[in-house]
């Protein structure tokens, strides 16, 4: 730890990640889960906690949970139960949340995290399913609002909570864990990974101990970190705060602290109000859930290739540099995009260069939806690259054409044909152009230089020809012709 503290402390971090599952319907009722609908339009008696309503389990959510558990190398329990977690809050219509407590869906796994070129396994303690709560909309700031409204559209959306073991050793490693976690759940198709919309949320437990000490220090829970950067900043701040406190001989209070991203510090939530006795007990409205070995096996058989494996395959199968492989596998959509393009133009490095430099210049590579809906779909990019490969267009022209393709959604062939952009390879017309340049009095100086032995002078002449043909001339042929004619002069 790079802090100016007297003692050498080790940071101990555990993360609790809540991922909204991308099921079409909610965890315990048939309401849609789509984000952004007008308030309270995606609700029913069940997700509004009306008297007499009962929950019915969404099988798809269970399947998504098992899929994730397997990707994290967890043991899927043969029997699990749902439990009620009680606390009063107006965004929670029943004033209890249906969650899992003593018998979670899965336990004991790990996630491989890469940081500064080194990879380390972080243990996963448990993975369980629960329902999301609604959303409060305050008139003004929370503290001064004269009224608040509740939107239950989100109430009952399936959530998957994954609790890591306290094995993360730095704020940077916590951010790396979260990044890799996100990559896995997104590539599994179980979560869209959108932190701004709240599809992925993270709380952290952090404590310090003297390096070499076995027992864990008193932990503090940090909430409200809604981006990778904020996770790292909040934990760095909190580690620093605790180190200073310990150095000053103070005791760390076990509490929940809120990260204030604008002010860059964590502050204590009033512990009296939030000291909960959740009074968990098994949810009597749901029967215990049995998960057969066959069911687990069938989910395992359908498991897609995970980002890490795919990254490695990109290196071995396509001979890509590890850096390229990492960039291209940042999302499933991008990796799919790359592979589909390679199928159309089997030059992996060329495709990789174009995806990284051109596509990712205009689209965020980690945005599954944006990549999948790219105005330049893989067959179009492959078509463009084929034109480069067969010499129809130059690389420079291709960049301009790409921009047009992106704007208009057209194929490269179409644009090249309409605008007459193909490279001029016709020696007769190029001869004429070269002769015209050489005959131009403005070229006399360059010709004289060349004759004196300055080979680079020819380049200026080639440039003139290119300019005269508005870049459409094949530079290789032009160069050849210029050399020929100069040597004959």
């Amino acid at each position, binding site marked *: 730890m790079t802090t100016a503290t007297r003692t050498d402390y080790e940071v101990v971090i555990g993360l609790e990640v809540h991922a909204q599952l991308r099921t079409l319907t909610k965890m315990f009722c048939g309401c849609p889960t789509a984000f952004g609908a007008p308030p309270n339009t995606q609700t029913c*008696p069940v997700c*509004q*906690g*009306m*008297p*007499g*309503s*009962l*929950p*019915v*389990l969404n099988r798809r959510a269970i399947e998504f949970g098992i899929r994730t558990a397997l990707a994290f190398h967890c043991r899927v329990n043969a029997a699990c139960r749902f439990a*009620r977690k*009680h606390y*009063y809050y*107006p965004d929670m*219509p*029943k*004033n*209890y949340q249906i969650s899992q407590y003593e018998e979670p869906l899965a336990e004991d796994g790990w996630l491989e995290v890469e940081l500064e070129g080194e990879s380390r396994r972080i243990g996963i303690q448990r993975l369980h399913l629960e329902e999301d709560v609604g959303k409060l909309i305050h008139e003004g700031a929370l503290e001064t609002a004269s009224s608040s409204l*509740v939107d239950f559209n989100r109430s009952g959306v399936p959530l998957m909570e994954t609790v890591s073991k306290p094995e993360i050793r730095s704020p940077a490693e916590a951010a790396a864990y979260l990044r890799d976690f996100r990559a896995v759940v997104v590539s599994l198709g179980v979560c869209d990974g959108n932190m701004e919309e709240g599809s992925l949320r993270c709380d952290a437990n952090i404590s310090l101990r003297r390096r070499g000490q076995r027992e864990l220090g008193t932990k503090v829970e940090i909430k409200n970190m809604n981006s990778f950067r904020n996770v790292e900043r909040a934990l760095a701040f909190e580690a620093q705060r605790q180190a200073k406190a310990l150095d000053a001989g103070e005791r760390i209070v076990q509490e929940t602290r809120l990260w204030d991203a604008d002010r860059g510090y964590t502050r204590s939530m009033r512990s009296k109000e939030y000291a909960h*006795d959740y*009074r968990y*007990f098994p949810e*009597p*409205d*749901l*029967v215990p859930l049995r998960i057969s070995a066959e069911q687990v096996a069938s989910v395992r058989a359908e498991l897609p290739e995970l980002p890490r494996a795919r990254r490695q395959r990109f290196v071995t199968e396509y001979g890509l540099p590890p850096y390229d492989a990492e960039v291209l596998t940042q999302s499933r959509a991008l990796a799919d995009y790359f592979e589909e393009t390679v199928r159309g133009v089997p030059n992996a490095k060329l495709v990789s260069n174009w995806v990284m430099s051109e596509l990712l210049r205009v689209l965020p590579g980690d945005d599954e939806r944006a990549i999948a809906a790219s105005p330049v779909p893989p067959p179009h990019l492959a078509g463009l690259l084929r034109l480069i490969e067969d010499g129809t267009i130059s690389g420079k022209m291709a960049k301009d054409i790409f921009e047009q393709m992106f704007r208009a959604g057209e194929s490269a062939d179409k644009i090249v044909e309409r605008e007459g952009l193909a490279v001029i390879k016709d020696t007769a017309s190029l001869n004429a152009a070269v002769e015209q340049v050489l005959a131009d009095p403005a070229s006399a100086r360059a010709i004289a230089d060349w004759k004196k032995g300055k080979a680079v002078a020819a380049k200026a002449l080639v440039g003139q020809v290119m300019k005269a043909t508005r870049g459409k001339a094949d530079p290789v042929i032009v160069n050849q012709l210029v050399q020929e004619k100069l040597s004959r002069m």
Partner: protein
Amino acid sequence: MTAAAVEELCVSDLAEAYRRRDLTPVAVTRAYLDRIQALDPRIDAYLTVTADQALAAARASEERYRTHSELGPLDGVPVALKDVLCTRGVRTTCASKILEHFVPPYDATVVERLTRAGALSLGKTNLDEFAMGSSTEHSGFKPTRNPWDLSRVPGGSSGGSAAAVAGGLAAAAFGTDTGGSIRQPAAFCGVVGLKPTYGRVSRYGLVAFASSLDQIGPLTRNVRDAALVLRVIAGHDRRDATSIDALVPDYAAALDDDIRGLRLGIPAEYFAAGTDPEIDRAVRAAIDVLRGLGATLHELSLPTTDYALAAYYLIAPAEASSNLARYDGVKYGLRVPGKDLVDMESRTRAAGFGAEVKRRVMLGTYALSAGYQEAYYGKAQKVRTLVRRDFETAFADVDLIVAPTTPNVAFTHGEKTDPLAMYLNDAFTIPANLAGIPAISVPCGFTAAGLPIGLQFIGRALDEARVLRAAHAYETAAPWRGRRPNLG
């Protein structure tokens, strides 16, 4: 046959009369509404009477009979619904001030099934608030009186439904039974009350008291009616994950088979000191009748009976404390303004819940609290397992268990002020709830003072057919069928 004596007719009589055109659903519905208007001010069985809807439904039913397209034996039968069953567009109060103006936007599955079968609802009946009680004195609105003696309670919590059937204010009624809330009022009011197997009838739309114990069932004039009605409301429901996916037999069809060779278990614990001697005598006499019908008798022991009551009064309040957490003034029902959110919620609950509900919420919250949960809720669950095993052991040797429904007959209003004394009323009914097995109460005589006594049959899970058959055999042989309270 005239509609003037509707209270004399049971469900199967009505269907028969409708088919023969002796009576029409509209005439019968009018007659019931008239009786309600005349007599209910003295009985107070109903919280809400839905006269207009009932008459509209009766006219629709009449049209079906006219075109010979009636929907089955319940078509045109006027029934009453305990006010914990959600009814679309009709307020559902649970006899609680906190839900006084709550109008559900949906029907309970049971209500849906009854409607589909052509039954029509006369209204919603009174109960102990949120079904917590054994006398219907703990209604947030008014106490219900026993038609046999208006100074006495009808039992509870389905007291309004039991009184409605006993007083001839509905052809049949529906109640819920969490610890005896159908059987005990049935016994007090001299009607038949059936608690089916847990999961046999969907709980969707039943406002929960204790989710792992609640079960909906009928209160009727006789056992045949109970069999007819059960067939309509039973069966799997996708909206209730705890409902059982098993075929629903034609309960009425097998009713007349004899009970020769039926093995009846007599549990010693249900005949212990503390039971009213008049009840003890009546039940033993009933058992003699059953022996006369060819049943064999087997003395047995259910040793955990004494612990069942204690376990119940931990499990039921624990679940209730959770189920009632939603009534906070935020979304529906009563809201008492406060200076902030917590204040609003506290004031709302303080004003909306009655004393008995508050007592049980406190009990349940305590039983689930950190540091106490294992000793109370956890231990109670273990006892529950033992109670279930007791029955399993017993049912290895016998087909049914026969016992009194209650240790005492209907008591007077205000007589039992000590909550514990009230809770003891459920001692013989609670074990079947903890075990999740079916049980019925049928009238088996009267005390010298003219108060009804209930006989209970308890059966194996999903064995309602046998429970009904034994009860029917007894009822057919028993001499006081058709005796009715005199309401002047």
